[in-house]
């Protein structure tokens, strides 16, 4: 019974996190901002959903889920960073929208 409740709460919160990520993907203004919403809340959502699933499984089946969490946590930041970097360089990043841009000075100095 308690297991069911814990499992349900974890699954729902995880799903909510994924939903908020999807909303961000639609609502946020430019590529790097959308990337935040597209990659990160999903990590949290996936972790919560997998933990929720693990609560209901026997130990031996749950062990594999640990691997999924591990690889997700390690790989997601790398991908988002590579996309963001190319976004900045190709100008898909809306620079008008930035409050501060301390990288611009450095890039100009390098170019000059």
């Amino acid at each position, binding site marked *: 019974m308690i297991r069911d409740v814990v499992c349900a709460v974890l699954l729902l919160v995880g799903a909510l996190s994924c939903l*908020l990520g999807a909303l*961000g993907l639609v*609502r*946020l*203004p430019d590529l790097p901002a959308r990337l*935040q919403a597209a990659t*990160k809340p999903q990590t949290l959502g996936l972790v919560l959903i997998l933990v929720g699933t693990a609560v209901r499984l026997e130990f031996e089946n749950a062990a594999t889920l640990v691997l999924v969490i591990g690889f997700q946590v*390690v790989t997601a930041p790398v991908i988002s960073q590579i996309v963001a970097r190319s976004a900045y360089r190709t100008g898909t990043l809306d620079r008008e*929208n930035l409050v501060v841009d301390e990288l*611009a000075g450095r890039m100009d100095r390098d170019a000059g």
Partner: protein
Amino acid sequence: MNVLRRWPQVLWLTVVHVLLWGTVSVKIVVGGLLVAVVVTALFPLPLLPRLPVRPWRLLRLLGFLVMDLVVSGAQVAWETLRYGPRARAGIVAVPLLTRSDRVITLIAGALSLAPGSFVLQIDRRGFDAGEARWYVYALGLRGPDDADRVRRQVLSLQRKVIGAFGSPGELRDCEEVGS
């Protein structure tokens, strides 16, 4: 033998193998060990001096990262719902505190894990003059105060990671910078 000196890699691959099968039995462990030895012998990674690991600080770092994932997640959700298309962001320069490749990788991963911020660029030139910088993209900035807040957060995360994995010298240096 080089495979013997790479025992941590063998151990790790065996653990992955056992987790994939999901059960612990002699056959699976020995099979995993064999596969791990063959893989390690065929695709050797460079042998590097091991990073010092301080377990207590590492545990605190992991705890912080989990908290950060939840708190930043809520912040980005708020930013999405409240501002949506009018959400603002910024790119903040933060001093780089370590010269070790592996520690930089770990810090970049830790910084980019939580929603709301990631590393756009790392500039390691002029480390000795204190000119090396992270360029961190952060969502949800409103003004210069927020930029300072991000700078402090990134510095404190750097200290946490260096605290867990940094060489003793670096640990001393970054604590001096902090005080």
